[in-house]
């Protein structure tokens, strides 16, 4: 599936570019979550099933939650 891999890799580079570009942190974290999602699909395309499962639960689930909770504590001083 050469065509599918090329399309996914182009989206990967595009989302990484959008992550480092903006100054506000909330937009960067959303693009980091999209980056992790496309990386999961790419791992599955290379027939690595365990790594895709781990990247899905950790990259797109836990990492985003921890980053969001850290951002909500830095400007205003309170959280949740």
């Amino acid at each position, binding site marked *: 599936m050469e065509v599918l891999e090329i399309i996914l890799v182009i989206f*990967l580079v595009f989302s*990484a570019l959008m*992550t*480092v570009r903006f100054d506000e942190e909330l937009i960067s974290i959303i693009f980091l979550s999209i980056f992790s999602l496309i990386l999961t699909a790419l791992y599955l395309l290379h*027939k*690595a099933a365990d790594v895709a499962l781990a990247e899905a639960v950790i990259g797109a689930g836990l990492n985003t939650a*921890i980053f969001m909770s850290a951002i909500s504590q*830095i400007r205003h001083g309170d959280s949740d």
Partner: protein
Amino acid sequence: MFNNFIFIILFMLGFYALVMKTNLIKNVIGLNIMEAAVFFWVISFSDIGGEVSIHKLGEEVTKFNDPVPQALTLTGIIIGASTAALLLTLIIELNKFSGTIDREKIEGLND
């Protein structure tokens, strides 16, 4: 061949975010992107076109992918998430201490 270029582009993007941006959270995000680029390159380099590395009961053994780089990548993903959590905790404490998250505007570090 094609994946080498993608690895270099992603690694340089993460490195740029780590060095050139002064926002501390951007530095942590850049570190995450660098790690993800290395994991992607390891998995795509060891792909020889085989099947998923799980035996099926009662079928013949065909060509399997290599299980050793996948085990190393699994360990690396989890350690990357733990490191990012600890760094973010330190950033929260630094923000309580000095009121800013810009690494050039923190008072008291230039002495």
